[in-house]
C-alpha cells in the first residue's frame, strides 16, 4: 500500500536532493515548522526566482517535496511558477481525487499518492508554503 506513497521518484529526490543548501544572494527568506512532527525548512528566493535555495530536516516526503519544488520553480517566469504552485497545492488538497498534469507538475505527479494520506499532506506542503512566504517577502506574489 505504501508503494503508492513511496514512489521511486520520491525516494530518489530524498536520497539525492536537487539544489539543497542555503545560498546568497537572496531577496526573501522564510522558515516554517510543522509543530506536530518538528520538521523544519528554510527557503530563500531571489526576486526573479533565478535561485531558490533551501535547507531543512524532515521526512522523505517533505525533503523530496523541497527538491521537486526547486526543480520545478527555479528560473521560471513568475506567472508560470504561480501556476505550478497552485497546481501542486490543489493536487495535495484533493484527497486523491485530482488527476495531476505531468506537463505542469513534472516529478511533482509522484506526490499524487501522498494526497491519500491526510497526515502526510502537511509534510509535502511544508516547503511550498515556506516558498510562498519567502517569495512574498521578496515582493513576488505566487498566487494566481
Amino acid at each position: 500500500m505504501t508503494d503508492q506513497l513511496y514512489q521511486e521518484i520520491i525516494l530518489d529526490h530524498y536520497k539525492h536532493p536537487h539544489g539543497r543548501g542555503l545560498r546568497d544572494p537572496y531577496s526573501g527568506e522564510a522558515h516554517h515548522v510543522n509543530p506536530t512532527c518538528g520538521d523544519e525548512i528554510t527557503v530563500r528566493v531571489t526576486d526573479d526566482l533565478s535561485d531558490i535555495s533551501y535547507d531543512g530536516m524532515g521526512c522523505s516526503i517533505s525533503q523530496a517535496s523541497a527538491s521537486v519544488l526547486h526543480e520545478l520553480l527555479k528560473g521560471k517566469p513568475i506567472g508560470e511558477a504561480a501556476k505550478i504552485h497552485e497546481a501542486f497545492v490543489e493536487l495535495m488538497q484533493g484527497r486523491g481525487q485530482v488527476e495531476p498534469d505531468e506537463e505542469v507538475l513534472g516529478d511533482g505527479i509522484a506526490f499524487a499518492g501522498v494526497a491519500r494520506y491526510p497526515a502526510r499532506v502537511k509534510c509535502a506542503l511544508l516547503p511550498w508554503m515556506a516558498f510562498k512566504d519567502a517569495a512574498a517577502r521578496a515582493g513576488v506574489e505566487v498566487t494566481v
Partner: protein
Amino acid sequence: MTAFDVARVREDFPILSREINGHPLVYLDSANTSHKPVQVLDVMRTYWERHNANVSRSVHTLGTESTTAYEDARAKVATFIGARSPDEVVFTKNSTEAINLVAHSLGASVGPGDEVVISEMEHHSNIVPWQLLCERTGATLRWFGITDDGLLDESGLAELINERTRIVSLVHMSNILGTINDVSRIIARAHEVGAQVLLDCSQSVPHLPLDVVELGADLIAFTGHKMLGPTGIGVLWARADLLREMPPFLGGGSMIETVTMERTTYAAPPARFEAGTPPIAEAVGLGAAVDYLSAIGMREIHEHEIELTGYALKTLAGIDGVRVYGPGTPDGRGGTVSFDVAGVHPHDVGQILDDLGVEVRVGHHCARPVCARFGVSSMTRASFYLYNTTAEIDALAAGVEQVKKVFS
C-alpha cells in the same frame, strides 16, 4: 486470576481483534493512550442508561445514585494510589489540567526572586504552565538536565534546589525515554528547603504499583485515558493539609460554601477544585479501570512489562542501524522504548509500520527538549501495556526490517 495470562487479558479488549491494512492490529502506542476493556465500557454504558443525573445538587434518586457512583470512583482511585483519604483526590480533565491547577493555585503565592524547578525530561504539559507562571509572577524557572544514559542529572542538586525554590515539578516516568526517575534525593532536598514537590505520574500510575505516602511527593498528577479509562478525566492528588491551604483555580458551581453579591467562601477540598459539572461518567469509568487493574494486580502488570521491555531492548539492539534512547536495560525504566532507524525519518518509519498494522508514535512526543538533548528532531516510540505480547515485538522488528528495505 492468579498467574498473569496475556491471552486472557486480550479477550477483554475488543479493539485488539481489529485488522489494520489487512494485518492484525499490533498496538504499541499505549503511552499515548491505552485501549479500554469491556469492563470499563460496560460500566459507563450502564451509568448512562440507568443512573444519569447531575452530582451533588439533587435530592432525587438518580441524582443520589449518580453522586454515589462519582464519589465511589474517587474512593477507588484513592485506594489505588494509597491516599490517606478520598478527600485528597481531585478530579480534573487530564494531567495537563491538574498541573495547570497547581501552577495557578500553589503558584499564587510565588513572586519575584522565587524559583521553580523542572527538568529537561518533561512533557510540554509540565513545562509550559511553569513558564506561564514565571511570566506572570517574575519568578525564575530552572531545570535539571539529562545524562547521556537518559537519567536526571542530579550533579547540581544542592545548588539547583535552594532556599529560593518554592515548587519542584518533575516527571516520574519519562514518556519518551522510559526512565523511571528515582526522585527520593530530590524530594528530600526540596523538603529540606521548604519547597513543594509535584510529580507528573501520567506514565507511572498506569504501569507500576504506586503508593503516594511511600513516594513522598506533596502532589501528583495523572490522566485516566492512559490507564484503561476514558478521556476527559484526570487526577490531582495532594496531601490533605496542603490542599486545604490552596486557593481555588476555577470558580463556579459546586466549589462554593456560600455566595453573596459581594463575596464567596469556598468549599473544602476536593470540591473547592471541581468547579462546574464534572465529567461524571468518565470518573465512573476510571473507577472501573482501577478495579480492573487492581484485579489483575499492578505488580503482575509491571512484571509483564519488564519482560516485554527486556525483550524489546534486546530485539531492537540486534537490528543493524537501530539506536535506542534511554536506559539500556529494564532496570529503572518502563515499557516505553524510543529509537531511531539510521537514515530514515521517524515519520517514514511510522508510515511503513502502519502499513503492516504496527501502530507506533513518531514525532517529538510533546517533549521537544528531550529530542534536542539527544540531537534529533523526532523519534519513533513503541510503548507497551498489559495486553501486549513478545510476538508483537517480533512484528515490530519485522516492520523495522521492511523500513530498512524500502529506504536502502
